[in-house]
């Protein structure tokens, strides 16, 4: 078999990824796997008769190729101070812990994770929260330690996400509490609305309260008022609280008109509705507007619950902190012990293995080690360190295990400062500023009209007061408060279905009027593992195996691409020598193998590019690495200025010419990136930054809007406004044009609700606003606005092109 067929055309029985041909062993009837990780998950499931997992949904398994942690990583969970961070409650020997499982994605996941008790008798029960991507496990702490629960999840292919600051518990329960409260408020408002409406409708039929039979004339007003009081005091409380704090900021704290919110006119309208109704009913001068009042609160609450649910579905509040190690192995006298990183002090000897992050500045004790500072500097080629040299926190050990001596205590603040340059995001976003300024203009307008109407009706004070309250009632901008959030929420949900996750609904507004789109290169535009082009290589699979075995000895990116994810197996390696900038040679299973530049390998064409390979003195051919740009075609359609900011050297500059012309910056440190973004912002441009990870984290924060891409669901995204998949980065173009569509949708709803206000105000100032008319037009306008918003958001998302 030739090595150039990279994939055998067989799907892995666990994850469905293509099985590399090199891994094809065994006969046809046995299931095949793409990697050892997938095989072990499959065998674990099989031994517990849980293979239904694979029949419940098509692509249940998640590829195990990228898993990092090992069993010892989890031991730290058994330390009381760490355990307590993740524990929801503990009674006697039973504890309940909540684990975040970012890779949870389908019904099979729910099925499996709900039945963890079948894997270990110590586990009492487990229950999945699919939306929050979390599983709560109740287990007997005597029978199975917390670390083993985490390790079981890991072995099942669901690596739990453990963060330094602990579980999601606190935030989750606060969220659940708000949601429960909203439901209670909604229940009470709905109850009052339905009953008050029954009283009102019978009054409307009879021709007014005063036309009803005498006993009902007394009963209905009293019941209406009694039912409305809890709506005013409890259900409508969020609006009153918000309006009150806004008013207080304006008046007492001298925050100026900037603190004015749209909730103030809403609260004013509600209050006017209630007070006017009570006066009408008590004095018997009218039928009151309590049906409109309770209905209004009910609709507003329903809108708020929809928003709350949209928000809950997208919990990607994962910060760069997720990359921090939770623990490290400390070497004592003849023993190694896993300790929480807070416990590391100066002088401790740490043992770090491949892909582990250095938790604090250290001195290298081993003769040599390779450290990848991509998180810090953005350069993806590992740096060679020799004995006695300082290895800085944030570096990642590549290849061989390294022993280090800590020279600083671990400080979270310091670790964070590596990536985070303090640039506090403005608290109020564009959207809030726009809507609140609108709220101010709106209130002033309403007040002006009310005053004019009052003066116009003046000799008759009662009539004048009636008109003023009518103006306040009809001018309550409830349709306006609903329009934008509902449109944005609907847009956010529609985008979520297409694999684009927004931090908050209002992010859409931030995506408007972008002038510059800045891209990071490696990992964002191109994939981290460059594709290996083996078409110019003539090798048998045995020879290819030898080449791979030698490549495992090098940390060079090309070598790593050669090894890929395949299981190389055991080979005897001898006389390995690596020549920086040239290549590596060695004797594998007794056969000499050379990988390197043309001259190093003695290729026939001495000056040709690429990585050349020779086995047993015979020249086999050349390998090329290709940076593959995702979705170049669609990115070219971006009307905004495109800019490339890369931490890498300009080695494949030519490749990006077509997309960026001369707008390319190379060798940029994270700080350079931030400065570039800030310079653009100072020049009055609105910048959208598209990046992948840690080395961009501060640039992402500095930009007006940030999009971070992830190559798989298990990779963590830093805090940013939008998260999407790296392969479909072209969606950035669609996203930006969709945002402007949404703006017009909101604009339509605004125009409509202004029309409603004009008509309503006309009725109000002429003294013709009756309870019946209010009861009809107020809910109607809200429903129409919701209709426009939801329909618009869904219609336009279908008109865009998504990948």
């Amino acid at each position, binding site marked *: 078999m030739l090595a150039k067929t990279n*994939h055998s*055309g*067989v*799907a*892995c*029985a666990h994850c*469905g990824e*293509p*099985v590399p041909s090199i891994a094809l062993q065994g006969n046809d*009837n046995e*299931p*095949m796997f793409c990697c050892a990780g997938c095989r072990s998950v*499959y065998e674990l499931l099989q031994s517990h*008769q*849980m*293979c*239904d997992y*694979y*029949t*419940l949904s098509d692509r249940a398994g998640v590829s195990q190729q990228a898993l990092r942690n090992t069993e010892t990583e989890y031991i730290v969970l058994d330390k009381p101070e760490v355990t307590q961070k993740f524990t929801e409650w503990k009674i006697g020997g039973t504890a309940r812990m909540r684990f975040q499982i970012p890779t949870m994605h389908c*019904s099979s996941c*729910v*099925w499996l994770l*709900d039945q963890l008790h079948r894997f270990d008798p110590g586990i009492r029960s487990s229950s*999945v*929260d*699919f*939306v*929050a991507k979390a599983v709560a496990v109740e287990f007997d702490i005597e029978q199975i330690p917390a670390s083993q629960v985490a390790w079981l999840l890991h072995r099942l292919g669901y690596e739990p996400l453990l963060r330094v600051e602990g579980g999601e518990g606190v935030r989750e329960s606060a969220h*659940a509490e708000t*949601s*429960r409260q909203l*439901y*209670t408020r909604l*229940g*009470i408002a709905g*109850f009052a609305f*339905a*009953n008050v409406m029954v009283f009102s409708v019978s009054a409307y039929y009879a021709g007014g309260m005063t036309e009803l*039979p005498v*006993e*009902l004339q007394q*009963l209905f007003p009293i*019941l209406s008022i009694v039912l409305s009081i809890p709506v005013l005091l409890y259900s409508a409380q969020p609006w009153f609280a918000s309006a009150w704090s806004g008013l207080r900021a304006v008046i007492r704290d001298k925050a100026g008109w900037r603190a004015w919110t749209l909730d103030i006119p809403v609260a004013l309208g509600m209050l006017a509705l209630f007070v006017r109704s009570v006066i009408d009913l008590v004095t018997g001068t009218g039928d009151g507007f309590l049906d409109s009042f309770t209905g209004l609160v009910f609709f507003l609450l329903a809108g708020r619950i929809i928003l709350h*649910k949209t928000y809950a579905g997208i919990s990607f509040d994962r910060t760069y902190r997720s990359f921090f190690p939770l623990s490290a192995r400390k070497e004592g006298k003849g023993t190694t012990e896993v300790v929480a990183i807070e416990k590391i002090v100066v002088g401790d000897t740490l043992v770090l293995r491949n892909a582990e992050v250095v938790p604090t500045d250290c001195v290298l004790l081993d003769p040599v080690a390779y450290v990848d500072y991509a998180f810090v500097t953005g350069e993806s080629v590992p740096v060679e360190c020799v004995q006695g040299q300082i290895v800085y926190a944030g570096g990642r050990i590549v290849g061989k295990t390294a022993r280090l001596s800590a020279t600083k205590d671990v400080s979270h603040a310091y670790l964070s400062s590596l990536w985070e340059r303090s640039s506090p995001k403005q608290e109020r976003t564009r959207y809030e500023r726009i809507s609140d300024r609108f709220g101010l203009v709106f209130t002033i307008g309403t007040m002006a009209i009310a005053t004019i109407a009052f003066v116009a009706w003046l000799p008759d004070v009662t009539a004048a007061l009636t008109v003023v309250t009518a103006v306040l009632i009809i001018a309550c901008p409830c349709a306006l408060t609903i329009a934008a959030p509902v449109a944005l929420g609907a847009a956010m949900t529609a985008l979520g279905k297409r694999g684009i996750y927004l931090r908050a609904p209002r992010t859409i507004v931030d995506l408007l009027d972008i002038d510059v789109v800045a891209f990071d290169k490696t990992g964002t535009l191109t994939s981290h593992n460059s594709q290996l082009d083996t078409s110019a290589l003539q090798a048998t699979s045995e020879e290819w195996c030898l080449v791979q075995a030698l490549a495992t000895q090098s940390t060079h990116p090309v070598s790593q691409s050669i090894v890929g994810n395949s299981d190389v197996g055991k080979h005897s390696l001898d006389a390995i020598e690596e020549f920086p900038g040239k290549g590596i040679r060695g004797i594998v299973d007794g056969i000499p193998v050379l990988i390197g530049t043309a001259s190093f390998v003695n290729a026939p064409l001495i000056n040709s590019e690429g990585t050349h390979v020779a086995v047993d003195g015979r020249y086999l051919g050349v390998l090329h690495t290709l940076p593959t740009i995702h979705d170049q075609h669609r990115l070219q359609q971006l009307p905004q200025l495109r800019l490339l900011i890369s931490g890498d050297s300009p080695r494949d500059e030519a490749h990006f010419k077509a997309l960026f012309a001369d707008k390319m910056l190379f060798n940029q440190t994270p700080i350079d990136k931030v400065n570039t973004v800030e310079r653009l912002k100072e020049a009055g441009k609105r910048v959208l930054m598209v990046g992948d990870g840690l080395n961009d984290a501060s640039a992402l924060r500095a930009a007006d809007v940030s999009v971070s891409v992830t190559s798989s669901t298990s990779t963590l995204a830093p805090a940013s406004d939008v998260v999407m998949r790296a392969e479909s980065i072209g969606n950035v173009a669609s996203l930006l044009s969709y945002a402007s569509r949404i703006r017009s949708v909101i604009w339509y709803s605004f125009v409509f609700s202004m029309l409603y206000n004009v008509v309503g105000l006309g009725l109000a100032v002429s003294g013709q606003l009756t309870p019946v008319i209010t009861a009809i037009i107020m809910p109607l306008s809200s429903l129409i606005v919701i209709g426009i918003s939801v329909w618009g958001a869904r219609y336009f998302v279908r008109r865009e092109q998504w990948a």
Partner: protein
Amino acid sequence: MGVVPLLVVCSIIVAGGFLVAFIYASRKGQYDDMETPSIRMVFDDVTTENSKSHSTTNKRV
């Protein structure tokens, strides 16, 4: 018509009972997670018998 006020009060009390039940349910977390149970309910039929007789064959890509 004298019975109408009595009926109105009775109906409000009955409806109030449902309101209390609703509030109780939402306080107990009945509406916290509306997504997972809808996935969970489809499993019961499959789990019992297929587990033992299941054999996996690789799908062609």
